[in-house]
C-alpha cells in the first residue's frame, strides 16, 4: 500500500500508514522491554542466581493464577478488599473534602483545625493499626480505618492547595457582583478546587490500597493481603505473586476510575488536571 503523500512548502511528508503506526521501532522496543522483564525473571529463577531459585517462575504463577481465578475464594477475597478500600477512601473523601474546602476558604476555621491536621499528618497510617484494633469491634472496620487514615491526609492537603491556588480575582469579581458567601462557596471554591481534589483522591486511593495490604496481613480473615500472607505461611509461593499482581491491577483500576470520573465532572480544566496528574500523582 503506497503511503498517502502531502506537500508542505515544498517538503514531501509521508503520512504514516495504519500498519506503521502499530509496527514501528518504538513499539518494538516497548514490547522488548516488557518481554525482557519476564525473561529475566524466568532466567534468574531457572539458573538459581543467588536465592532466586526460591521464587516462583512466571509459568508457575500463570498456572496457579488461572486456577485461583476460577475458584470462589478469589472473588470473595477481591470483594472484601475492594469493599474495605473503597469504604475507607470514600469515607475519607466525605470528611476530608468539606474540611479541606473550609480550611482553604475560611481563615478562622483554618486556625482552629489546620495545626492539628499538620501535627497528625506525619504519622503513617500503618502506625494506627494497633489503635484500630483497640477500639474497633470488628476486624473489617479496622482495615477500612487504616485505609481511611492513609487516604485522609493526601485528600485534605490537596483540597486545601486547590482552594489556595484559586485566582483571588474570582473572589473579588464575585463580591463586586454582589454574591453572598454561599454562592461564592458553591460557584468558586468548589469548582476551583476540583482538579486538585481529583488528584488528591487518586493519590488517596493508591495509599488506601497500600494500607489495606498491611492491615489485612496483620489482622483479617479474608482479603488479598491476607491471602498473600497465608500463601507465604502455607508455602504456596506462586499465589503470593498472583495476589501481588491482582492488588496492583485493582489499585491501578481504582485510581484510573477516579481520574476518569473526575475528568467527566471537570471538563473545563481537563488540561490542568492532566498536567497536575503528571506532576503529582506519578509516584
Amino acid at each position, binding site marked *: 500500500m503506497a503511503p498517502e503523500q502531502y506537500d508542505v512548502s515544498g517538503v514531501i511528508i509521508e503520512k504514516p500508514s495504519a500498519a506503521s503506526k502499530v509496527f514501528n521501532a518504538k513499539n518494538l522496543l516497548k514490547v522488548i*522491554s516488557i518481554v525482557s522483564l519476564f525473561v529475566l525473571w524466568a532466567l534468574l529463577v531457572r539458573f538459581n542466581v543467588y536465592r532466586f531459585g526460591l521464587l516462583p517462575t512466571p509459568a508457575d504463577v500463570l498456572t496457579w493464577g488461572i486456577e485461583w481465578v476460577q475458584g470462589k475464594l478469589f472473588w470473595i477475597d477481591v470483594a472484601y478488599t475492594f469493599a474495605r478500600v473503597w469504604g475507607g477512601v470514600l469515607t475519607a473523601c466525605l470528611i476530608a473534602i468539606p474540611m479541606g474546602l473550609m480550611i482553604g476558604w475560611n481563615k478562622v476555621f483554618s486556625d482552629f483545625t489546620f495545626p492539628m491536621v499538620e501535627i497528625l499528618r*506525619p504519622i503513617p497510617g*500503618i502506625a494506627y493499626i494497633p*489503635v484500630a484494633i483497640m477500639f474497633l469491634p470488628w476486624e473489617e472496620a479496622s482495615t477500612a480505618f487504616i485505609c481511611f487514615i492513609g487516604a485522609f491526609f493526601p485528600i485534605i492537603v490537596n483540597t486545601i492547595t486547590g482552594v489556595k491556588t484559586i485566582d483571588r480575582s474570582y473572589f473579588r469579581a464575585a463580591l463586586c457582583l454582589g454574591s453572598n458567601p454561599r454562592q461564592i462557596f458553591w460557584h468558586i471554591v468548589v469548582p476551583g478546587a476540583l482538579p486538585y481534589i481529583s488528584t488528591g483522591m487518586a493519590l488517596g486511593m493508591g495509599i488506601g490500597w497500600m494500607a489495606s495490604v498491611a492491615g489485612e496481613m*496483620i489482622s483479617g480473615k479474608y482479603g488479598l493481603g491476607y491471602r498473600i500472607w497465608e500463601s507465604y505461611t502455607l508455602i504456596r509461593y506462586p499465589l503470593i*505473586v498472583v495476589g*501481588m499482581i491482582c492488588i496492583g491491577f485493582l489499585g491501578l483500576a481504582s485510581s484510573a476510575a477516579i481520574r476518569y470520573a473526575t475528568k467527566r465532572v471537570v471538563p473545563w480544566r481537563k488540561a490542568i488536571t492532566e498536567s497536575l496528574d503528571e506532576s503529582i500523582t506519578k509516584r
Partner: protein
Amino acid sequence: MATNAQTMTDTSDTLVSQTAVWKPVVKRSSWEQLKRKIFALATVRRISSVLIFLALWTVVVRFIPNFHQIPPPEQVFLAIFKIKVSVFFFEIFRSLYRVLSGFFLGILIGFPIGVAIGYSRILNYLLFPAVEMVRPIPPIAWIPLSVLFFVNIESQIIFLTFYGAFFPTVYNTVGGISGVDIRLPRAGMSFGVSKAQLLFRIILPAASPQIFAGLKIAIGITWLMVVAAEMIASKGGLGYLIWYNHTVMNYPFVFVGMGTIGVIGALCSVGVDRVGKRFTKWLDIF
C-alpha cells in the same frame, strides 16, 4: 541573576523588577515583636486547636464505651517520662538507619534510571514499560517475597524501604526532566554546550524542583514501609515498639511510639526540603 534584574530596572523604565517588594520598616524591639506574635488572635486560635483536639480525645475516651481501651491524653503524657532513654534511642536509630539506607539506595539507583528514561528516548522505550509494569504493586505487598528472598532481616527491611523510595524517585525525575521548558536546552545548544553540560548545567537544575518533590514523597513512603516491615519482621525498631506494646497491652506507649514516628518522619521531610531549597535557590528569584 539578581544583579542583572537590578541593572535592567535602572537602565530602562519599561521593565519593572518583580523581586522588589517594599515593606514599610517600623522599628520595634524584639520583645515587642515576640509579644505581638504570641498574643495575636491567630496564634491563640492555633494553640486552641490543639487543646480542642485533646479535649475531644478525653471526652471520646471517657464517654464512648468502644473507646475505653484507648488511654486518655494525660496517661500518654505521663508515659513519656517512663521511657528508658537508652533503649528508646536505640530503637529510633535502628529505624532511622533502615529508613535512610533504603532512601539513599533508592536515590542511588532510582535517580540514574530516572535520568536515563527522561533524557534518552531509546532508553525510555526500553525501560519505562518495564518500570510501569512493576510500579502498581504496592511496596507492602512485597513483604512476603522479600522475607523469602533475603536471609538477613536487616536486608529484608532495607529492601522494602528501598523499594518504597525507588518509584517516587524515578517517576519524579522522569516527570521533572520531561517537563523542562524546551527553550532552555535549545538556548543552551545555540550557545554550543556539550552533552554533559546540557544535562548537568541545564536540564537537571531545571528539573530539580520536581525531583526534590519526589524525594519528599519518597521519604514519607520509606517511613510507612519501615513501620509495616518492622511490625511484621519483629526485629527492633519503632514499628516493632508499637506492635510489642500493643501485644503486652501497654497502650500509652503505643501512642508515644506513634508520636515519635510522626516527629522523626516530619523532621526527615523537613530535612529533605531544606536540602532541596539549597539546590533550587534560583527559584527565589522568580
